């Protein structure tokens, strides 16, 4: 018996051959998840619509910049003001109509979508990052520290993020992508932190973590190699759980006039434009709102599908 076995030796030692190590199991986990996800028709449809929406937002405004065949397809500048055509209802020339400045809403909704979606994903990632750090520290440390950190979260749970987002924007005084990300994530990370902490605590009980500890792996190796990679599943689900709230949050901020500044647009600021003209041209508020609703709906269905696929234990039977 080796007095001080190196980790390589231990990994190869127990009964199973080395090929039964982590990478193989992981790939089969993802393949299983994929199979389960594809079976869920609603989730697949939602993912498809989500993809089409992304394609529309990011491809349409880009098309007219690329010389060649696309230029003829829709050569419309979302910033082009055309007062004689203001408040036009949807038509062939303007599939979604025009806004109060006569700007084409088909191009503008795509532009607003880029900003809304970018802020949405940016803030979601920021929320998850804070959540992972806080949750991992709390769950991994355990004991009194964990207790204190969780009591703190218990009490803050459900705190409305909007007042804190408004104050944050007032402090910075500038509204751009980064300040919106900070404003939307500053008081929204509590749920994410709870999810990560719960996952870490469950994972800590696993035999392979105990085994890693027993062979003398340092805490950062246990955390970085065994615990954090295994939270990836819940984190992917959490992206689509957080996204709707953040997208709606951005829309709320822009709608009450504290968001993206003109002439740039987000779906929320476009809805605010439409709010002033809802009697005369209801499509100006309806178009961006439907875009928001579609995105939120898709994200919900994708999150449900992912939960069934990646975390089958919690599935309803």
């Amino acid at each position: 018996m080796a007095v001080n076995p190196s980790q390589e030796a231990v990994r190869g030692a127990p009964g199973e051959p080395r090929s039964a190590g982590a990478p193989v199991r992981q790939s089969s986990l993802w393949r299983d998840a994929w199979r389960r996800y594809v079976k869920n028709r609603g989730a697949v449809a939602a993912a498809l619509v989500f993809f089409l929406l992304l394609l529309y937002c990011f491809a349409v405004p880009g098309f007219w910049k690329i010389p060649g065949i696309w230029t003829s397809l829709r050569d419309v500048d979302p910033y082009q003001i055309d007062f004689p055509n203001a408040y036009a209802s949807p038509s062939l020339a303007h599939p979604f109509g025009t806004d109060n400045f006569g700007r084409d809403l088909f191009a503008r909704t795509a532009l607003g979508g880029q900003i809304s979606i970018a802020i949405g994903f940016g803030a979601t990632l920021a929320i998850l990052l804070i959540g992972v750090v806080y949750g991992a520290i709390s769950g991994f440390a355990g004991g009194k520290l964990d207790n204190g950190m969780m009591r703190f979260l218990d009490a803050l749970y459900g705190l409305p993020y909007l007042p804190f987002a408004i104050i944050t924007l007032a402090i910075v005084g500038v509204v751009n992508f980064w300040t919106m990300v900070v404003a939307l994530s500053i008081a929204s990370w509590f749920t994410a932190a709870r999810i990560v902490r719960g996952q870490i605590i469950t994972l800590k009980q696993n035999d392979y973590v105990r085994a890693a500890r027993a062979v003398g792996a340092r805490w950062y190796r246990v955390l970085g190699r065994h615990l954090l990679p295994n939270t990836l599943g819940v984190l992917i689900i959490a992206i689509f759980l957080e996204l709707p709230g953040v997208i709606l949050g951005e829309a709320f901020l822009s709608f009450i006039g504290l968001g993206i500044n003109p002439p740039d647009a987000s779906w929320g600021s476009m809805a605010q434009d439409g709010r002033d003209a809802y009697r005369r041209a209801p499509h100006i508020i309806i178009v961006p709102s439907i875009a928001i609703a579609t995105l939120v709906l898709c994200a919900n269905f994708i999150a449900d599908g992912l939960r069934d696929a990646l975390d089958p234990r919690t599935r309803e039977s």
Partner: protein
Amino acid sequence: MTAFIIRRIFWTIPVILLVIFMTFVLMRQIAGNPFRQTERAVPEAIQRNLEEKYGLDKPWYMQYLLYVRGVATFDLGPSLVLRNRTVNDIVKDHFPNSIQLGGLAFLFAVVFGIPLGVIAALRHNSSVDYGAMAFANVGFAVPNFLLGTLLIYLFAIRWGDTFGLPTSGWATWKHKVLPVIALGTGPMAIFARIVRGTMLETLQQDYVRTAKAKGLRWRRVVLVHVLRNSLIPVVTAAGPLLGFIVTGSFVVELIFGIPGIGRYYVTAVQARDYSVVMGVTVLLAIIIIVANLVVDILYGILDPRTREART
């Protein structure tokens, strides 16, 4: 149980102090001073007097302690912009409207959301279930500014003569119908989804099968065994939902021109009325924190299994 309650109450005190501190630190970062705006320039000496009167000349930690003392004695200080009014006056003027709006919306969500979830679960995988869940999903996804605007457009303008509902204001019950629907639909959808989930879970339990096997009438099984146990987890959703309603009320108050605290908050931020912004933020945070406390204690009473795990 008593130990759990005492410990839980004890923990809210440092959290409230911390929330006040966070708000306080954030507010101090805001550029500009209410007394140094160009359009209201006053002589240097008067400026100094004003800052002294409002305690702005003291070191920050003294300001913080004075503020905490004020919060503890329900005195949120004077408004910095409206000279002859205190934050308490403003809260008294605007907050009741917001509480009424939020409370009615919450009631709307409970009254319509819970039955919707129950029916969907009892008719699992039927067209009723799919219809209810489609409705709930759309209800959650549609932003309340669209819902509010559509409601105004349809029921106050296009068919205004039939329904006789006003477009804005908060005077009579007619003014309250549309805002409450606009604010309550989102929480209603959330309630419906949660109740459906917990109901489906409870229906699988052994004690439900036992009750059925004993030959109890199905209605009794549902009402006594399933519903009661399914609604307990729903209690935990009440805290976050309150935050959801607070957030939504900012928008709904704006759309319907309701003189509530959310609408006032936005103007106060723009006018740099520090004390109003701080006071309202702290007030909202304390309400949510206390609501969480009540929910947690209630949950401990309703479901004895959670007590040991949490003490």
